[in-house]
């Protein structure tokens, strides 16, 4: 095996900035903030009351008739994946069973799906009547739950919350019969899913892959979790615009949100043969792990991230000099941003001062498993338009950060872009895109 080139031929995004890639990109270019006061539940009792919420949509409009009945089995996470997948496939010009069963132009056995997914937390309200039926003297009683509560839970309840159901619903809708995997590496799951999908195509196990991720973080359990781990900002409940401040001296924590970012990856030969529009090529990916006894954060020197970036550069056979844009994880948690900045600096060396770094979460929020897909799509758009939008909320750079955070929108030719990420628990990843050249 020498080399199979893997290219991006379709992009789909649902984010706090809108229901489409275009909405997201326009929003990012305008410096719009997708963060707002949580409306899904009354957040008054939560230390962090903000989230990146996606606009309303009707899921039925994204699901073909043949799969309509299954809509009731979709948690929000699954819906977000279904919406993003449809846009990505439509954009690619590939016609699957879910796009138009009369005009299918793909081979289902040669299509793969590889999505990052979060640990889906169940709908608390849905559980409440069953819990209410399980109280003894006002307190929850496990025996009463087993006897009376359990049977009030809807029979197919579990199937809404298995992480692999994102890929399964999308796979059923579009008849994807090749390899299917669900990467559960929290906030770096999307990056890794894209990397693995590219590998699957490169090794010849499929010609086309849907890859990326989706996650809904707006659930009281998940928001409470991030508050307790002290990753969510509690300082900005009256200041949505300024809440998430990656690499800023005043940063105080992340803001979580909903999103789905999915790309169509394709074997270059396949894409060329069908005359597909090619956005970019995936030329290198790298991965490693942070090792930190306090594993809710990455290690202070960001070494795991450095290794991932170095591996990606090596695979792409380029040096830091070639990188024109970095989209970092940049979550707005001071300790983690500082570690990430050190990790990137160690990989980029003297080029650190030059390379524009553009964090997106001040606008998109931290969408967990969707981050990787959304950031890769943002990089693709930047490359396409030769434009790096301005970073938001990095008004005064944190003292220990030597990165060149983009202050103003810049028109520039982008040949190579790097998207990197990491997660609590320590997994790290880097994906390098190259502007397509035949």
């Amino acid at each position: 095996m020498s080399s199979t080139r893997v290219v991006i031929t379709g992009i789909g995004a649902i984010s706090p900035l809108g229901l489409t890639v275009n909405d997201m990109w326009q929003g990012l270019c305008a410096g719009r903030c997708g963060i707002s006061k949580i409306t899904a539940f009354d957040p008054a009792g939560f230390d962090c009351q903000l989230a990146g919420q996606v606009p309303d949509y009707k899921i039925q409009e994204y699901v073909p008739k043949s799969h309509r009945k299954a809509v009731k089995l979709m948690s929000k996470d699954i819906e977000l994946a279904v919406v993003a997948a449809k846009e990505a496939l439509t954009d690619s010009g590939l016609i699957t069973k879910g796009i138009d069963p009369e005009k299918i132009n793909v081979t289902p056995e040669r299509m793969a799906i590889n999505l990052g997914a979060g640990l889906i937390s169940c709908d608390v309200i849905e559980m409440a009547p069953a819990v209410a039926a399980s109280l003894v003297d006002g307190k929850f009683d496990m025996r009463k739950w087993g006897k009376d509560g359990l049977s009030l839970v809807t029979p197919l309840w579990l199937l809404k919350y298995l992480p692999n159901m994102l890929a399964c619903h999308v796979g059923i809708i579009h008849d994807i019969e090749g390899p299917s995997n669900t990467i559960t590496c929290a906030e770096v799951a999307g990056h890794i899913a894209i990397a693995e999908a590219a590998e699957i195509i490169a090794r010849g196990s499929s010609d086309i892959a849907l890859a990326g991720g989706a996650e809904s973080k707006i659930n009281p359990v998940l928001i409470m979790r991030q508050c307790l781990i002290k990753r969510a900002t509690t300082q900005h409940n009256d200041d949505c615009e300024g809440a998430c401040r990656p690499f800023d001296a005043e940063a105080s924590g992340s803001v979580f949100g909903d999103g789905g970012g999915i790309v169509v990856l394709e074997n270059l030969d396949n894409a060329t043969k069908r005359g597909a529009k090619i956005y970019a090529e995936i030329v290198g990916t790298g991965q490693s792990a942070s090792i930190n006894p306090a594993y809710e954060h990455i290690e202070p020197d960001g070494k795991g991230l450095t290794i991932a970036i170095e591996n990606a550069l090596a695979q792409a056979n380029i040096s830091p000099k070639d990188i024109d844009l970095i989209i970092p994880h940049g979550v707005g948690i001071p300790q983690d941003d500082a570690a990430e900045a050190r990790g990137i600096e160690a990989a980029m060396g003297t080029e650190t001062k030059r390379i524009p770094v553009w964090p997106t979460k001040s606008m998109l929020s931290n969408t967990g498993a969707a981050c990787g897909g959304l950031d890769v799509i943002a990089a693709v758009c930047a490359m396409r338009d030769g434009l790096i939008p301005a970073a938001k909320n990095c008004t005064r750079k944190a003292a220990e950060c030597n990165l060149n955070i983009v202050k103003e929108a810049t028109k520039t030719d982008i040949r190579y872009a790097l998207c990197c990420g990491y997660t609590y628990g320590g997994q790290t990843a880097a994906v390098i895109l190259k502007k397509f050249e035949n």
Partner: protein
Amino acid sequence: MTHNGKNERVVITGLGIVCPLGHDVETMWQAVLAGKSGAAKTTIFDASTFPTTFSSEVKDYDFAKFTKNPNLHKDGNRGSKFAVGAAVQACKQAGINVETDTPADGIDRKRMGIYLGAGEGAANHEAFFGAIAAGWDNQTNQMDWTKWANTAAVKMKAMHELEQEANMPAAHIAMLTGARGPSRSCLTACAASTQAVGEATMMIRRGGADVVIAGGAHSMIHPLGITGFSRLTALSRRNDSPETASRPFTASRDGFVIGEGAAILILESLSSAKKRGAKILAEVIGYGSSSDAFRITDMHEEGRGAIQAMTRALTDAGISCGDVNYINTHGTSTAENDSIETKAIKTVFKENAKNTPASSVKSTLGHLIGAAGAAELITCVLAIRDNTAPPTMNLNDPDPKLDLDYVPNKPRKMQIDIAMNESFGFGGQNNVVIIKRFREN
């Protein structure tokens, strides 16, 4: 995307397990061959009023015995702690140093990856149910979110919350071993750890790592997990006889018996294993993955995805079905799986189907969910080592429609050079890995 052009052979150099039938590989294997059952009354929580009151639990496990630094792993969820024990065993067998900053095993930590099929940590059910109880007004069907939050904020514990994430077992293995290569976690339901081993194999083959600590770790024996499976009517309800409840391929099978545990295999490039002089236990020669793309709730009636996964694995291995000596089935003891899996094996193996022994160790271990595939793959390695097919226990009333050789009720001495391991998951996930007795050529 480039390969290094080498296409490395991938071998297994270490095994480790923490499971309902023991906390080491040999104890587990002897128990499987003796037909012992891991199933008993559930003790992890009070399941006495649940439709199913038993499960296959890991018993009397003390993870601290495996580590010099138990404090580092003390907050780990059950899966994380199982993973620590299994990884330490596997590394030891493979000659990989753990818990040291100066490893002397000849493996560059940047070339050592991790790939786990791992599940969620159990929710803190006291907090989960308690907060709902505190906030819910049953008269108005309204949640008072402030009351909910006030209770949750007190009852939920930060580290317990963190440890619910599915990537945590991998975090513990990284801390334990210093592995700095690619680290991935996947969760494709009951097929997860077979997929992890398969993808880890691909990672080594293309030169992305020299060694991968691969396998699975999972426990769904928690109130919400058991609730979910109970509502799906997937679990056996044979409460009066837990030990005989897992009875794959019988006419009286009534569901699976849920288990838990961790199973780790050290996968290594042949060149690395040779360089280190590591003992080679078997070679991974084939991997196939597919999705049914059929229905969320059911497997495809003809086993379309299962057939694809088996076929792809055979093709990848460059062998034909006649070369497979033994099949370790998914064999869950559910009506649907056992009949469709049998059908799929017959479609792929044709005239060879009936004379290829195909057993289910879920009849003894129970169903380890995310960890099942890797645990069963370990039994395949041992089946090759000992030329012994493990039995399908409790097979006293064969389903007349299921007519393969399931190795009923006692192990069988036979030549096994090539074994196929099958795992299928909810939603139509199918993964198959084929291993072979190691030979130089």
